[in-house]
């Protein structure tokens, strides 16, 4: 399984000389398995270049595009994804269920005539829309896609791709669950505490022993203190989940749009200093950057 990063930045694109090393495109990750349909996670602006590569690749005909959620930075590249305009492609769009609109309605809104010259109904590819919740989906001959809700101000899904006993987990736009009932009565506080504990454990179970975890680590621990409830994690929280779940490698993702390349490198170095402990195994951690490819060999 080859995982390639096409967009690693959160919130909005951040082009410029200070971000050129890690890249300024918003989230998009390609997952390739030989002889299987192509999987894409999120359609931030990074998907535009991936689309251009796909139309020059005769081996791709079926594409499964999974949205973690439908905030702007995860959908804004979709109208510029070239395969949408070609009848050669069968494209299945999967995204988290919403309580009042389905995925097709949500995605069609950003391609209304007011915002974009081509409407969804006019797209030439064979499109289908799939509203998904927590479930297990079979793709192609041997890929399993599992999903889990994570903690964000809108419904957001984490994805686990498994093929030939190798698994890759993608968790973007998530912050640790917390007890929101500090001001409630004792029973309410205790219920909150237990639900948080249960949800934290459920996420560890979901991630457990995966070969690669790509995870939101937008903030430093100090920054996070002022951004609680925004739906993003600190590097340390991201690393703690990786450690508690015993993953083999962790990649920090969804970089802050204001973060320069030099600042990102310093953040990583600081994290490594904080988590280094000679008595325990330190999990390899690196920063996601555009065009980074990670191969999980069976």
């Amino acid at each position, binding site marked *: 399984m080859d995982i390639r990063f096409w967009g690693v930045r959160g919130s909005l694109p951040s082009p410029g000389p200070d971000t050129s090393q890690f890249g300024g495109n918003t989230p998009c990750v390609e997952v390739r398995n030989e002889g299987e349909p192509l999987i894409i996670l999120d359609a931030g602006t990074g998907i535009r270049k991936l689309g251009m590569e796909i139309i020059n690749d005769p081996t791709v005909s079926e594409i499964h595009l999974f949205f973690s959620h439908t905030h702007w930075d995860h959908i804004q590249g979709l109208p510029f994804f070239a395969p949408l305009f070609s009848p050669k492609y069968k494209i299945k769009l999967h995204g988290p269920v*919403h309580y009042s609109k389905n995925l097709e309605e949500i995605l069609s809104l950003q391609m209304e005539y007011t915002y974009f010259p081509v409407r969804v109904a006019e797209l030439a590819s064979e499109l289908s829309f799939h509203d998904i919740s927590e479930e297990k989906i079979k793709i192609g001959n041997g890929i399993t896609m599992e999903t889990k809700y994570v903690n964000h101000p809108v419904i957001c899904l984490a994805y686990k791709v498994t093929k030939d006993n190798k698994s890759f987990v993608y968790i973007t736009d998530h912050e640790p669950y917390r007890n929101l009932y500090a001001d409630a009565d004792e029973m309410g506080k205790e219920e909150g505490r237990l*639900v948080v504990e249960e949800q934290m454990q459920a996420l560890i179970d979901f991630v457990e022993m995966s070969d690669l975890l790509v995870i939101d680590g937008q903030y430093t621990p100090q920054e996070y203190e002022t951004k609680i409830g925004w739906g993003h994690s600190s590097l340390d929280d991201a690393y703690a989940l990786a450690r508690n779940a015993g993953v083999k490698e962790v990649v920090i993702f969804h970089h802050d749009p204001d973060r320069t390349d030099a600042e990102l490198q310093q953040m990583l170095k600081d994290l490594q200093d904080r988590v280094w402990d000679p008595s325990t195994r330190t999990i390899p951690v690196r920063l996601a950057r555009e065009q980074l490819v990670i191969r999980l060999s069976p």
Partner: protein
Amino acid sequence: MKIISLANNPKTTPTDLVNTISMDPLLTAKLLRLVNSAFYGPNRAISSLNRAVIMLGFNTVKNMALSIAVVSSIGIKDDFKWFSNEEFWQHNLGCAIAARTMGTTMGASPLEVEEFFIAGLLHDMGRAVLIQKFQEECETIYDPAYKPDIPRIDLENEHFGISHSELGGVVARHWKFPESLIMAIGNHHAPFSMEDDHHKMLTLTVHMADQFSHKLKIGIQNSPNTGTISEEAWAAFKLDSDQAEKCLMGLPESVEDAKAFLQKIDD
């Protein structure tokens, strides 16, 4: 609309939101319906608003509640002859608070206790449906002078072929509520006939809380139900009458406090 003003206030906390939603049986019912039908399957259905907020996020639940409140149309019509929407609401809230207190006394865990409250709050949702759909017939059968010796639930069965309790259970199942709530709502008038032991104590507690609310005249004033509790119910219940009475101390005041809280938000 309290929910709208709360949802538009950036200072609103999850506790404010849940406290306000849980005072409104219909909003609570619709919210749980939406949470469970949209996000969770029947095996993992959620029956606590606190849990829903932590699992789905404050923002999601707030916006769901807002969208429901805005389009909400189900309720007891204010021109219904025998009780007002406010009386109906107070009866349900009284039942909810009583059920929660009894659940706590019986040793329900913090993860279970909210279910007692919700089950009490929603136990009469079938009645709201009957009144909305068949107002004229309901004005006849809920008239305390009409066939005074016959329990209203028998009259419902006679007129509609289903009681408000059973109808509530059917609606709860259709709305994908957890099995515990379906059983409690659907059987709160006949908890002794239940074979399912798993949900029997919750259902029995709601039955007791309902009867106590009638006995204490909380909410609906004009009810022919005097809140008599059968020996069979006492025999099956985990609390004796002294313990139950302790749970009911301060119940009318708690309902009044809740009413005052809502008025304060409105002001």
